[in-house]
Each structure stands twice: as C-alpha cells, then as structure tokens.
C-alpha cells in the first residue's frame, strides 16, 4: 500500500488524507479507538481549529458573559434500540448529561433531534420518548428544543437520536486533562463492561443466568458529591466507546503523562467476565455507560473515594492505579499474575475472535 496524495480532478487540490487511509468510512472510524482519533486529528481538528475545540474533551468549555459554560453533543445509533437495562432514549439523555458532568458542569438544558426510518412503530417511539422524559426528569435537566426528520425505509437504521446539552461550571471547578499530573490517583467508580456485554447479549443471543443489564445512568450528582469533597479532582472521563482502555489512553495522550494500573483492582462481574471469555473480548475495551474514571490529587483521594462510596453510583469505587512520569502517553498495566504490559489504544473494531 503506497502512501500517495490524491489529486481531486475537479479542484486539483490534494486530499490531506493519504489514500492508504481508507477510501470509505469504516465502522471502526466510529469505534472510539485509533481510527476515530485519526479522523478527528486529521480531518475535523485542522478544518475547524480553534482554542475551544483543541482540548478535544468530552465537551467544550466556552465563556459566556462571565460564566463558563459547557457545551456538548452526541449521537446515539445503537442497535438493538432496546436492551436489558434501558433503551436508546435513556442512553441519549444520560450520555449527554455525563459529557457535561465530565467537564465539571451542572447540566441544564438538552436538545433532541430524531432521525426516524419510515415504518418505525409508533409504540416504540412512545417508549423511547417516555424513557427520555424519565431520564431527563431524574437528571434534573430540561429538554428545551428539538427536531424530527423521517427518512425513506431502508435509509436509516430504525432511529438515530442526537442530543446536545449545555451546563454551567461553578467557579473554582477546573477539570481538564492539563491538570492531571504525576502522582494523581486514578479512581474507577464501579464494575466495567456491563453496557457493551448487555448489548452483545441481545445481538449474539447469549443466555445469561442472571440478566446482565446496561449500566446507563446520569453521573452528574456523583460528580457533584466528589467536587463537594474536594476541588482537587483534576480529570474526569466516562469510558464509553472503546472502553476503559481508550479513555485512559486519551487522558495519557492529552496530558502527556504515563498511567499505571493494576488488573486486580479493576472490578468485573462474574458473568461479564464469562461473556468476555466466550467471545474472546477484552473487557478493558468494552463500552460502559454509567461509570467514570477520575484523576485525583493523592492527598485528597481518600476523601473523594469516601464521598463516592456514599453515593449509589459510586459504592464500588476503587483506586485502580496512578499517574506516573514514566512512559508518557502510554498506559501500563500490572496483570493479575504480576506481569506488566502496555494497554494500547483500541485498534479497529473489538471483534470477537476464535484464535
């Protein structure tokens, strides 16, 4: 495969994406791993470059009349649209609320745009809408504007939902990868890989003895509790697509620090573990929807952890590792048998394997 610039026949301009990097968009470009990062770094960031986009955090922090506002957007295209523990509507609200929470913002207002495939059952739409109403009421956010489009049958996978949100950041709260520094402890709020496996269980027809449910939940109150215990929470990330591994790699990269974690401190449920074994999936790369990972000053860690454990969404919170000065940009894990290895960024789709 040669690396050649491609000349556009109409404009004569050379295409900045080398021809090796895929003529067509692949599923992996939306996977949250390396290819997603490449697309952002090589296409979106250079095209729209500005100081608010640069941090490439879950949400942008923009100034507005003396207040710092957080602004985020996310689209939800999951299939199946209904799964154990929730549906695409709950995801759409909680996911965007969480992106705002990861900026340290109090979520205030959401928008919702629907792209619905012709023929989609009205009952299903009712279910999703009710689900969104419940989720936004529980999260204390108002849905203030929206849009609806219907596309021809076959041109959309049942339903796609985009939600955008704005929130306000209190003064004294400064959550940003640049604040993450060597010595910070890394806290994970609970067991991983639930959401991804719940989805897979429907898709792949796996039967669990105890139902595995998605952990979709709004995390902003947990964050408020944490910030109430200490303002020295330097970084926050919710490990959604690409899993815990991708989230940690993103912070390591953005903050130019090394990260060191221990496999035996990462909680994984028995059945989730079994499902991952059977499918040949690494739980570190499986999506979560109601978990966060926090980077906290070492002196304040105990206090933040105690506060988290008092909250229902943080009762299994634990320190899984720390930020180090060595190997900047790289995440290293001590495996459960004591060996050490690099936890790389996700490459491509996390496909189940037989080999």
């Amino acid at each position, binding site marked *: 495969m040669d690396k050649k610039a491609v000349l556009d026949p109409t404009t004569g301009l050379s295409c900045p994406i080398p021809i090796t990097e895929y003529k067509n968009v692949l599923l992996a470009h939306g996977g949250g791993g390396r290819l997603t990062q490449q697309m952002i770094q090589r296409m979106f960031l250079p095209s729209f470059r500005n100081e608010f986009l640069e941090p490439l955090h879950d949400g942008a922090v923009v100034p507005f009349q003396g207040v710092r506002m957080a602004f985020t957007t996310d689209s939800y295209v999951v299939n199946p649209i209904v799964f154990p523990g929730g549906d695409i509507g709950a995801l759409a609200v909680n996911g965007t609320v969480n992106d705002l929470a990861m900026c340290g913002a109090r979520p205030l207002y959401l928008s919702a745009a629907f792209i619905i495939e012709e023929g989609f059952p009205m009952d299903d739409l009712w279910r999703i809408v009710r689900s969104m109403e419940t989720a936004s009421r529980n999260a204390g956010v108002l849905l203030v504007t929206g849009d609806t489009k219907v596309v021809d049958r076959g041109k959309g996978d049942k339903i796609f939902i985009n939600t955008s949100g704005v929130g306000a950041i209190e003064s004294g709260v400064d959550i940003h990868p640049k604040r993450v520094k060597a010595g910070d402890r890394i806290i994970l709020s609970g067991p991983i890989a639930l959401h991804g496996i719940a989805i897979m269980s429907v898709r792949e027809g*796996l*039967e*669990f*003895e*105890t139902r595995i449910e998605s952990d979709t939940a709004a995390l902003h109150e947990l964050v408020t509790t944490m910030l109430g215990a200490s303002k020295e929470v330097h970084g926050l990330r919710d490990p959604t697509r690409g899993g815990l591994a991708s989230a940690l790699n993103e912070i390591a990269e953005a903050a130019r620090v090394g990260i*060191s974690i221990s496999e035996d401190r990462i909680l994984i449920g*028995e*059945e989730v*573990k*079994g*499902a991952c*074994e*059977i499918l*040949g999936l690494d739980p570190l790369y499986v999506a979560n929807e109601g978990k966060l990972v926090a980077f906290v000053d070492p002196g304040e860690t105990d206090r933040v952890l105690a506060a988290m454990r008092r909250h229902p969404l943080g009762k299994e919170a634990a320190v899984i590792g720390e930020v180090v000065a*060595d*190997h900047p940009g790289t995440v*290293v894990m*001590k495996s459960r048998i*004591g060996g*050490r290895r690099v936890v790389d960024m996700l490459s491509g789709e996390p496909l189940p*394997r*037989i*080999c």
Partner: protein
Amino acid sequence: MCLAIPGQVLEIEDAIRPRMGRVRFGGIQKRVCLEWIPDVKIGDYVIVHVGFAISKMDEEEALRTLELFREVDGALEELKIPEPGDHRGGAWPTEGDTDAIR
C-alpha cells in the same frame, strides 16, 4: 490458536444427532455440540471451541498440574534452589523498578 474454554455440562440432548447439549461458562449458558465426547455426563467439564466440545476436562490431572509447582522446594532439591526468603535481592519485580523505554 485456539480459543477454547472449559464449561460444565448441564443438559444432554440425546435424541438428535449430532448430539447437542447445554453448557455453562461462568454465568452464561450456550448450546454446544457434544458429539465427540461419547461418554459425557451431566456435571462433567468440557473444553469448547467454536461451538464444539473437543475434550473432557480430567479433574485429577488438573489438580496434579496445580500441585506440581506448589511442591517446588522438594521436587527440585537437586538443583539447589535458594531457601524462600533467601532470594537474590529484587528478584520479584516491584512497582518501583524503572522500565527502559524503547
């Protein structure tokens, strides 16, 4: 090659060929082809690869394998391994060791 994990046989469907059964892995159950384990019984552990049981787990052998290295001190006397606690310093890697970065 190749991903195959042990699971416990819960049910055997004798009536059809190739013989199928229900196997539990952790908290998950899957339907598996048991045709190649003719003497399989409910409660046995089998190793399953791409939906087929390829062997029956020999529990005695499993325990023996685990015991083999638990008795390291006695078994390898003749090689004069050091007493536990009398190790060359720093033999077990700790978090504090520096890594060389390529």
